[in-house]
């Protein structure tokens, strides 16, 4: 498209044809006043400040909604327009309180800015004022109708950008207001407290209650950090005052989130300042008589409603004063020197006593790339084995194993941005809007734009409401379902023959198996009507650009690897891979689970997925690290726990993981950990796992340390330290470095571990991992500036400066790169497998359906499936200590179909016992049609009713991932206490 040439105030400008007159003017330094315009939202044209005159036109026209056109002659300033603007402002002021003294938006309020510019001290129109009382009723968001200027930004953000559709205009005339349907309180509405409305409000109408009177936006320091929760990799702008996070807001320059967040990112960060934070080391010691910490597990939940103005979260409560070391069963405070010396000494002793195979380490999907790199290096170099793994084993091990076989590499093939432009989206086993909200927004936006959505899920999830076709298959019948889809595609001749021929191999063998899965037979296995299977198959196969999105519903099965390979078969069958908005996209669940895998925190590969048993690779790393290495793949998480249990593993180093809640069959985990000779846990809280440690090391939270994180779309982003450390806690990389130096000395191994900065680690990682070859610290630490007016295309800014103090001018984030990025000149890779697969030809695999390991029977008649809720994260250690999530979902629950509940005479909200062959928990019943009859669902975040007391340890034979998604359970009414 050629550029458009037109004149603004006599000045000729050349702009992109997609722009509006307002954008073009702002880009060219011509200021047109505007209140309702927001660069990330579609134009509203309601404030009438940006009106301009067009030569030949009669009435003034809103420039925010006026597309540029060749030859247009625009006048932005004259007396007439000035009067209209002044009248509009005067009218707004006639219904807006002048309470700037206590307004959160003082000094950055757009209305205030224009009132000053136009010299309007007060309104000249007396009259009725809006008198609706503020909408409160929750501790997070307050809506002041008297302050609201009805600019509509919040409505557009809620409905079009994040598609939560919780608020809209209601009533007419002067009585019009923005509210939830039927004016119900936000907490009882569809509002999910993502905070988008608050972030886009130009005045003080929508405010973050958690920040009220703690620090105005204008007086806070800013920092742009990467969200510590799911794998979306959202950029968050923090407001900081007195080393405390006052509020968070989505960073419009964030390449993954473009300014949008979910409740966890927006209202779930105050755990950083929680009194339960570990601030000193702890050692378990016989002589120690002190019990330095209140007994857990009773997660401290912020109280409501006082929290709105409560500062207690930031006050020092009962904090540790020394590092913790367990002495005779009791954890006591210790100094760092004491703790590090003990750890190095013990690991060296165990290695000497029991051999190198007796040590193992668990890295962390919440820690940075640099820290995970260092952890695996420590394990491989100093422990002398490959017993390094982390919780990716529990989420996407099957993806890593399966897609490696099919494509040669395992990661999202596309970028989050590409979801918006897909014309068919198939979501299977992913409750995207809850587990990956930002991607959920993108899917909903795509649907609203006309994309067809196919959802395969046993549960009714939010996306099923947006779907064109919902295939409600039985838990654990994914392979049969996918084979059924492929059967239809092949039998109707809808496969992409050219792609199959030129890009793949093994088609015939796969076809042979698939022929045994006609839709009618598949209907019998999956419970999905044959006609729906046909419809879905045709829709997917006939798409121009189709994206498959999947997550734990596919991977956490004993057939997890099969499931992922089946999906690979499907996308290759239709040639829906290797181009924009077309591919196979496993969504990664933690802020850096992609990175932890990338940098080698896996037992079978070095950084960059380079096999440990490949002699050339081994030689390369021996060269790089200067020590001999083991070529034997190490133990996985599940095997390490088993090893601890059966005495094979004696010493274990856990960084930022909580297997006591996250692993299946917790009782079994507990036995294993108890059986260890020496357990080191490094974390920010005294988690369920840390309580069982010999030494507890206080680490820094994401906001206090520097490090790069790789999100689910392979995007490496640097997160700077926004806060000073809490107490004596230290960054994980520094702790690892100090322990490693000490241990290397004890073992007499000569290898570099004394790192002085994060950048040294980033660059070392780049030097050994080809996919990260061009991801140098120098590149990712550059700042990117986003001009507010220019929309959403950030460019690298070589003259990096500190983030702006005032968010009304410019917005910044760090420069990010998507791997593979082999060289310093390489711009990174938006989507994978463009002309060929990583392994050359893509490989079809013939895959047969296999039932889950444990199916319901008369003793345990229900299928229990587990997963996440939007409001909590993983083992709850962070979200349950945060205001927002803890308010919305304060306690554990089990979802149960009304028919099942009726059969058992269980009422909504009643306590029930859920039992499996491995344990039982007491939990609140939530009666809902979301689960089909015979199936129950439990989120796994809650220590007091841990889903993983019940789950099955049966694992996928290849990936060793446990079958979290299916086990047999029974329900009984809980006895009244």
């Amino acid at each position, binding site marked *: 498209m050629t550029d458009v040439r037109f004149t603004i105030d006599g000045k000729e400008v050349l702009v992109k044809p997609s722009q509006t007159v307002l954008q073009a003017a702002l880009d060219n330094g011509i200021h047109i006043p505007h209140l309702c315009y927001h660069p990330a939202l579609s134009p509203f044209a309601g404030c*009438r400040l940006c009106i301009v005159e067009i030569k030949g036109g009669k009435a003034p026209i809103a420039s925010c909604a006026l597309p540029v056109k060749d030859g247009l002659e625009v006048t932005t300033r004259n007396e*007439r327009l000035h009067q209209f603007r002044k009248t509009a402002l005067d*009218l707004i002021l006639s219904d807006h309180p002048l309470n700037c003294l206590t307004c959160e938006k003082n000094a950055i309020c757009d209305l205030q800015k224009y009132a000053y510019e136009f010299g309007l001290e007060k309104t000249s129109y007396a*009259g*009725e004022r809006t008198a609706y009382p503020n909408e409160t009723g929750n501790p997070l968001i307050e809506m002041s109708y008297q302050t609201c200027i009805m600019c509509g930004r919040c409505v557009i953000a809620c409905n079009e950008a994040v598609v939560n559709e919780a608020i809209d205009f209601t009533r*007419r005339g002067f009585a019009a207001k923005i509210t939830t349907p039927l004016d119900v309180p936000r907490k009882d509405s569809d509002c999910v407290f993502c905070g988008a409305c608050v972030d886009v409000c130009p005045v003080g109408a929508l405010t973050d209650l958690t920040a009220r009177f703690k620090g105005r936006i204008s007086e806070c320091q800013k920092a742009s950090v990467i969200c510590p929760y799911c794998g979306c990799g959202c950029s968050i702008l923090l407001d900081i005052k007195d080393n405390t996070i006052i509020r968070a807001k989505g960073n419009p320059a964030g390449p993954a989130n473009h300014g949008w967040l979910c409740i966890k990112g927006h209202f779930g960060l105050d755990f950083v300042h929680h009194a339960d934070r570990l601030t000193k080391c702890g050692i378990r010691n016989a002589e120690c008589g002190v019990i330095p910490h209140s007994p857990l597990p009773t997660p401290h939940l912020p109280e409501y409603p006082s929290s709105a103005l409560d500062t207690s979260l930031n006050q020092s409560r009962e904090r540790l004063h020394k590092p913790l070391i367990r002495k005779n069963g009791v954890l006591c405070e210790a100094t760092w020197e004491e703790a590090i010396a003990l750890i190095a000494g013990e690991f060296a002793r165990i290695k000497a006593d029991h051999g190198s195979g007796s040590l193992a380490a668990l890295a962390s999907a919440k820690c940075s790339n640099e820290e995970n790199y260092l952890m695996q290096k420590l394990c491989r170099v100093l422990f002398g084995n490959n017993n390094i793994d982390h919780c990716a084993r529990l989420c996407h091990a099957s993806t890593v194993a399966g897609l490696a076989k099919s494509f040669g590499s395992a990661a999202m093939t596309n970028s989050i941005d590409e979801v918006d432009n897909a014309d068919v989206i198939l979501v299977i086993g992913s409750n995207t809007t809850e587990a990956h909200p930002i991607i959920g927004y993108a899917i909903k936006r795509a649907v609203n734009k006309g994309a067809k959505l196919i959802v395969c899920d046993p549960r009714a999830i939010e996306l099923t409401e947006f779907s064109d076709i919902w295939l409600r298959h039985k838990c654990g019948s994914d392979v049969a379902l996918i084979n059924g889809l492929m059967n239809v595609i092949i039998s109707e001749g809808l496969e992409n023959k050219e792609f199959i021929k030129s890009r793949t191999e093994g088609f015939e063998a796969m076809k042979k198996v698939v022929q045994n899965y006609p839709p009618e037979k598949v209907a019998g296995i999956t419970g999905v009507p044959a006609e729906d299977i046909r419809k879905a198959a045709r829709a997917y196969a006939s798409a121009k650009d189709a994206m498959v999105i999947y997550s734990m519903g596919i991977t956490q099965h004993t057939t997890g690897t099969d499931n992922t390979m089946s999906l690979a078969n499907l996308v290759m069958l239709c040639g829906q891979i290797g181009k924009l908005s077309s591919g196979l996209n496993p969504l990664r669940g933690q802020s850096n689970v992609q990175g932890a895998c990338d940098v080698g925190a896996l037992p079978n590969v070095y950084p960059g997925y380079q096999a440990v048993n490949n002699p050339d690779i081994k030689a390369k790393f021996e060269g790089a690290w200067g020590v001999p290495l083991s070529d034997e793949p190490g133990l996985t998480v599940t095997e390490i726990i088993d090893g601890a249990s059966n005495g094979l593993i004696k010493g274990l180093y856990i960084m930022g993981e909580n297997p006591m809640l996250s692993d299946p069959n917790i009782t079994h985990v507990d036995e294993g950990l108890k059986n260890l000779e020496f357990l080191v846990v490094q974390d920010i809280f005294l988690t369920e796992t840390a309580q069982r440690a010999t030494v507890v090391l206080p680490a820094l939270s994401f906001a206090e340390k520097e490090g790069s994180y790789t999100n689910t779309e392979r995007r490496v982003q640097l997160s700077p330290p926004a806060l000073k450390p809490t107490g004596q806690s230290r960054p994980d990389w520094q702790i690892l470095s100090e322990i490693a130096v000490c241990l290397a000395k004890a073992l007499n191994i000569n290898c570099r571990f004394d790192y002085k900065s994060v950048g040294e680690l980033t660059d070392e990682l780049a030097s050994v991992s080809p996919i990260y070859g061009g991801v140098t610290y120098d590149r990712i630490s550059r700042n990117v500036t986003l001009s507010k007016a220019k929309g959403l295309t950030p460019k690298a800014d070589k003259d990096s400066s500190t983030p702006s103090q005032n968010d009304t001018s410019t917005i910044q984030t760090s420069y990010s790169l998507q791997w593979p990025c082999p060289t310093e000149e390489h711009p990174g890779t938006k989507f994978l497998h463009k002309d060929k697969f990583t392994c050359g030809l893509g490989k079809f695999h013939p895959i047969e359906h296999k039932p889950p390991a444990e199916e319901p029977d008369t003793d345990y008649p229900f299928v229990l499936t587990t997963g996440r809720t939007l409001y909590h994260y993983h083992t709850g250690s962070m979200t349950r200590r945060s205001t927002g999530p803890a308010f919305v979902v304060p306690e554990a629950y089990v979802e149960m179909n009304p028919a099942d509940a009726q059969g058992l005479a269980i009422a909504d909200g009643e306590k029930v016992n859920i039992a499996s062959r491995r344990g039982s928990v007491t939990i609140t019943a939530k009666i809902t049609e979301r689960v089909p009859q015979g199936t129950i669902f439990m989120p796994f975040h809650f220590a007091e009713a841990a889903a993983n007391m019940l789950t099955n340890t049966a694992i996928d034979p290849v990936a060793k991932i446990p079958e979290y998604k299916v086990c047999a359970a029974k329900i009984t009414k809980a006895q009244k206490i």
Partner: protein
Amino acid sequence: MQKLHSLKELQYFKEELLRSYDGKKKRILVCSTGCRARNALKIRDAFYTVIKQEHLTSEIEIIETGCQGLCAYAPVVTIEPHGIFYGKLTEKDVPDIIAKTMKTTEAVNHLCYSENKNTYPYLKEIPFFKPQKKIVLRNCGYINPTNPEDYVRRNGYLAIAKALSGMKPEDVINEVTKSGIRGRGGAGFPTGLKWKFANGYKNDTKYFICNGDEGDPGAFMDRAVLEGDPHSVIEGMLIGAYAIGATHGYIYVRAEYPIAVEYSTLAVKHAREMGLLGENILGTGFNFDITIKQGAGAFVCGEETALIASIEGRRGMPKPRPPFPAESGLWGKPTVINNVETLASIPQIILEGSAAYAQLGTQGSKGTKVFALAGKVTNTGLVEVPMGITLRQIIFDIGGGIPHGRAFKAVQMGGPSGGCLPAEHLDTPIDYESIKQAGAIMGSGGMIVLDEINCMVDIARYFMDFVQKESCGKCVPCRIGTKRMLEMVTRFTTGTAETGDIEKLQALAESVRDSSLCGLGQTAPNPVISTLRYFRNEYEAHLNDKFCPAGVCKELFNYAINPEKCTGCTVCAKNCPVKAITGEKKKAHTIDTAKCELCGICVEKCKFNAIAPVPKKQLNHIKK
């Protein structure tokens, strides 16, 4: 319904209908839509009963029609083939009509229209009907709107057949362009041009919408057409859809028009059954179908972009244009939205040719326009006249003038978006430009006549109140500006306005007019602007004298009896509901202002024009 598979079958079907139609048969055309409010259905039933009793069932047919136009005479019937028109009927009049008119063709004189002591039994001679030229309303009141055969018999669907049997879409657009017809919804945009734009945007999916969201107070022509002749609208849509390449259409009709909803829904069903809607219409390969969408009562949904939002299931709020709906309308596809009246005219234009249509009207405004006559005029009702006729002709010749011998003060044209024209404009020819120049708009054709006892400030207040409540709330000038304007005007009517308020009101009105987002806001100040233009003296009286000369604004006047005119007839005293009037027979009466509630009954009853509003302070002065 019989399905028609080809153009020939339609032609044959029409000929069959004509063959079997006995034009000499006695028929009673009962208005069964608008007149329902005046017991029309009981009248109809009475006819059935009497006819049955008299064993005339085979001789007399009752046709339930739509609006026949002269609503002031509701309930009305027309007797065919004589063409006798009766109004203001009661059930007891029915036997008379049967006995006289049906048996002997004699008119029942006291049921006939009368004016100036003349009685007019025949419809075509009635001054109300005589000057009218019916194109839009050609079938209204003559046919049974629920019977498509009636429509086809009167050349229905022959226009679309003509279009499909040889005209290219461009030819159709050309014909409509040449006819000069402009959108009857209010803005007067040339229909042919609108179609041409939509035709020019290439897209597999296009939509054609009929805007039946008639919301102007006093306007009811769209309702009358949908109730009385829905197939003409469907045919107009078919022609338009063919011209622009649309495959689906919507009739957006207000839910407050239940008969219009019922009859248009039925008409769509019938048209579909007859093969006139759906796939492969009349075997020509042309596909088009219609969905009826009911509006929920927001005035603003008559605005194109708000109407589109409403159909899409969103809140009816206007969007800035461009892009215009012709480029990006419903679901982002090229869309044409035409008003009911426009669409009902289209079949005639195609069938009779553009020249015949363009012959009617003025240079810039062709054809006929339907007006809804309401307010202080004798013959309230629907009239269709050629453009170019004067206001005086409509109000006095057709409308029969102002009742009660009062003086004409103004005519409010174009609904809340329009303006009030004073007597000096009575000879203005009615066309888009002249009316606009005079300070009102053609609008949808609402025409509310005001007489000397209407207060123009209060009229402005009424319309401001209406638009303020109907503002969607999106843009600042409309949401807050109209509210402040209403508050200011209200201050005039309550005597609390201050010096400078007229100028301030004027300035705000112009600002709202010029800077609002959509047509609603841009025209909302018109009633204020036009009354300030022609009746500024009334504002000044309210402001300076704290007096409402028309005797409407209750805080600004008292009634007083002029002793020179009062004859002491006691009628006022007898009729005063609060016994505020006293006086001896044959002597001048007086009003106790402490008791008087300003209801105005005495003014109505006084035959000597002796009671009039006076400023409050003046009366106090007299008292002293």
